[in-house]
């Protein structure tokens, strides 16, 4: 937590985006998380990503549940819409909001407790329904708000700050998402913004549910020796399989790579993601192979990072599957939204 107010001044030569805004104008309130929390870096990466996309603040809807991670939505884009749901219930709120207004860009920020323990059922169904949103899990393996108990993502053998080892197997959100058929699955690290920022941008532009599991160390309760989610351990066991560059609509692809080294995926809005395989044997479009690859690497003690799996999600996306209205409900005239008792009577008559 910080007592100093961040001065409202900026570097005069800060670059401006298409809207003429600087990165500073995408910031939110001052963080009250611990000094050095990985979540603050994720916040900075989201700020950078939104700025880079030239997103109008009011185009963004940020949603969260409960936990350290869920506080972070307050710390970016203060001009955005926001909803702070009860514990583990953010996916339902996101689904409802999304159904009512498909024009906003939805970013949910949750944690390993909020998503993998109390909210696991909610998360699973958001993936299954293919809600068009970016879902960020700030994953640190502990319950920071309640003083560092192991969470559902703690690895077997990882040690708590008091020295006890964890014995229960973890829920890996990446494997879970692959199993449930997510069309955009990525893993990254709060300490690597070069990788994280393009992933966030691609995730926001993906049509369908995009999950990014961000290893985000808890500097207070899980950054010691023996922890498998500390800054040092993550850096040592970090295996980037696929590098992703996000290319906004207007920009040209600057560098050409030899055939086979890179593939370009075009997003729904015309922007593109260029994938460079750092491991030649890896194919991010093959969901089954991706699952297998992660399991094997994990057995070797490595976290696979990068854009692990991407596929076209538009066909199965929530709105397509449910044939919802293209016009946000807040713009549908009241008489059409609520056609009155006579119309209700007619409708009921069809079921008699």
């Amino acid at each position: 937590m910080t007592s100093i107010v961040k001065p409202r001044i900026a570097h005069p030569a800060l670059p401006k985006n298409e809207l003429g805004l600087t990165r500073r104008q995408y910031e939110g309130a001052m963080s009250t998380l611990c000094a050095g929390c990985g979540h603050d870096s994720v916040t900075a990466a989201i700020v950078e990503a939104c700025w880079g996309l030239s997103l109008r603040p009011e185009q963004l809807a940020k949603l969260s549940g409960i936990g350290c991670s869920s506080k972070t939505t307050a710390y970016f884009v203060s001009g955005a819409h926001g909803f702070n749901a009860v514990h583990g219930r953010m996916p339902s709120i996101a689904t409802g909001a999304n159904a009512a207004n498909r024009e906003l860009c939805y970013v949910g920020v949750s944690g390993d407790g909020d998503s993998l323990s109390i909210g696991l059922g909610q998360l699973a169904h958001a993936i299954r329904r293919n809600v068009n949103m970016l879902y960020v899990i700030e994953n640190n393996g502990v319950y920071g708000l309640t003083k560092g108990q192991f969470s559902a993502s703690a690895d077997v053998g990882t040690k708590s700050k008091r020295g006890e080892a964890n014995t229960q197997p973890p829920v890996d959100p990446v494997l879970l998402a692959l199993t449930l058929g997510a069309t955009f699955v990525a893993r990254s690290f709060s300490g690597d913004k070069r990788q994280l920022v393009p992933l966030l941008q691609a995730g926001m532009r993906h049509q369908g549910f995009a999950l990014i599991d961000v290893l985000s160390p808890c500097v207070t309760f899980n950054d010691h020796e023996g922890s498998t989610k500390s800054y040092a351990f993550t850096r040592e066991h970090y295996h980037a399989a696929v590098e992703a560059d996000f290319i906004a609509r207007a920009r040209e692809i600057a560098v050409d790579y030899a055939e086979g080294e890179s593939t370009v995926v075009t997003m729904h809005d015309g922007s593109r993601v260029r994938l460079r395989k750092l491991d030649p044997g890896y194919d991010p479009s093959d969901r089954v192979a991706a699952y297998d690859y992660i399991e094997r690497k994990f057995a070797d003690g490595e976290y696979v990072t990068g854009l692990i799996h991407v596929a076209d999600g538009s066909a199965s996306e929530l709105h397509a599957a449910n044939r919802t209205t293209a016009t946000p409900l807040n713009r549908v005239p009241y008489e059409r939204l609520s056609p009155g008792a006579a119309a209700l009577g007619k409708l009921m008559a069809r079921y008699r």
Partner: protein
Amino acid sequence: MQPTDTGHPDHYHRVVDCQWACPAHTDVPEYIRLIAQGRFTDAYLVNRTSNVFPGILGRVCDRPCEPACRRGRVEEKPVAICRLKRVAADHRDEVRAQLPRAAAPNGRRVACIGAGPASLTVANDLLPLGYAVTVFEQHGLSGGLMRTNIPAFRLPAEVLDEEIGAIVEMGADLRLNSPVTSLKALLADGGYDAVFVGSGAPKGKELRLPGRDDSDRIHIGIDWLHAIAFGHTQKVGERVLIIGVGNTAMDCCRSALRLGARTVKVMARKSRQFFKASEWELEDAESEGVEIVVNHAPKAFVIEGGRLTGLRFDVLEYELEDGRIVGERVLREHVEPCDDVILAIGQENAFPWIERDLGIEFDKWQVPKVDPVTFQSTRPGVFFGGDAAFGPKNIIWAVEHGHQAAISIHRHCRGLPVAERPAHAAALASRKMGLHEWSYHNEYNPAPRRLVPHVALGERFKKIKIEVELGFTPEQTALEGDRCLNCDIQTVFSAPLCIECDACIDICPVDCLTITADGTEAELVGRLKAPRRLATEPLYVSAPLKQTGRVMVKDEDLCVHCGLCAERCPTAAWDMQKSTVKIPHACDDEPTCQLPSQRQTA
């Protein structure tokens, strides 16, 4: 890149832009903090240690610190450092008891020629060492050009008397009305172990044009100001022209208004960007109704019936290239009617009283050859300082010359080589008191620069001695002090502690931090989080970091010393530490020279 050597005394000193720019290295942020705490006496003493004349300089310093001030880079205007200094001088308590005292005589005698700021500083530094210092002054009042060339409406006599009096009271033998007419005789006298020449640059430049000698209404600026200061000149004609646009010209035009002139015009040969006067002196003159006329080159004095009636000018047009003049063209001629003309086109030093066979070498412009570090002439034991050494500068430079000459004289008199100089030193002390607690005020105040209130225009011309500037009010002082960014509270980094969590990078309001792969400077600056603006500002590069081998880079340019990097650092790899630069003076180790608080109780 080579990791930055923060142990070098200059490293953190350079970050304190104001102190680095000040010739005497006055500890500006420290005294501004003391002023903010209402400790005016302490603020005054911090000033006096380095600049000797805080009350005088708080009014008329050329303020090299202000253009250097970081606040001027972060936003538009620098902190009003000079005017805050005046607050300390105006509101302090009696300090005589706390000033250095003369020591028991050490048997050495030093002669200082001229009672200006350079000589007085030499006396100030040498008296506490036991030297007998004699100051020879040709005029009947001390202060040199500070008194004769700076009008009383900018620098009242009482302020001069008070601060010069403190040095005289310490035991200097001040001999007024005692011009030195022969240095040979003074040296032959044999009574002095060292001679310091601080006689200034007392000769105003001439303007040889037709008609120059045909009227007694054409005056040399500094002589005219001198005559006003001593009460010999009390009137001037209705229409006055000032030739030249330096600070002396500004003092001349404003003085003319107070002697009864109705229209005063400052005639400049070039356009405004080439003016030598400080921006604030131009502003003050213009606000009093002085007209500044550009691109007029004087050609001839117009004398009619034995009387000066005007001045003939060529009106010029300049051809500029990249801000430099590459050609000029005469558009027409213009005669400006006037009753008096004041020539303020520069001044130079003059040494008719120094014989040329004394072993003191002069260059072809008759300027003595003086060592820029030791201030010794080519004759050992004879030193120069102030305007006498390198031509007209300003008071704060004269003070620093005096300090350096005093160090040289003290070494000379002990038979030590004068070229060996005492080293600067630096000390750091943490400002962390506890969680989220720092012992300095680090909240950024966005307030714009305060303006010093002035005496109303109608009032100020009634008498020449009415001081125009009133000084800051308490409210203004508080706000202006708050604008100081505490550049001496340094961000000190310890590479082995860093876990590369990016917290400092993310929070820095001005994006001055970057963690990146090491490289050459030219290539590394291209990877900074925000573009580097000034290659002159220090760049800090750490040793390789533990986890990835990358380096922490800090561009000092815009750092506002808010302390957020240290506040957000989980491992205290960043800390806010106050840096103190130890600037050596001649009398450093003498107990008589120390402030009472520093004196050890036996």
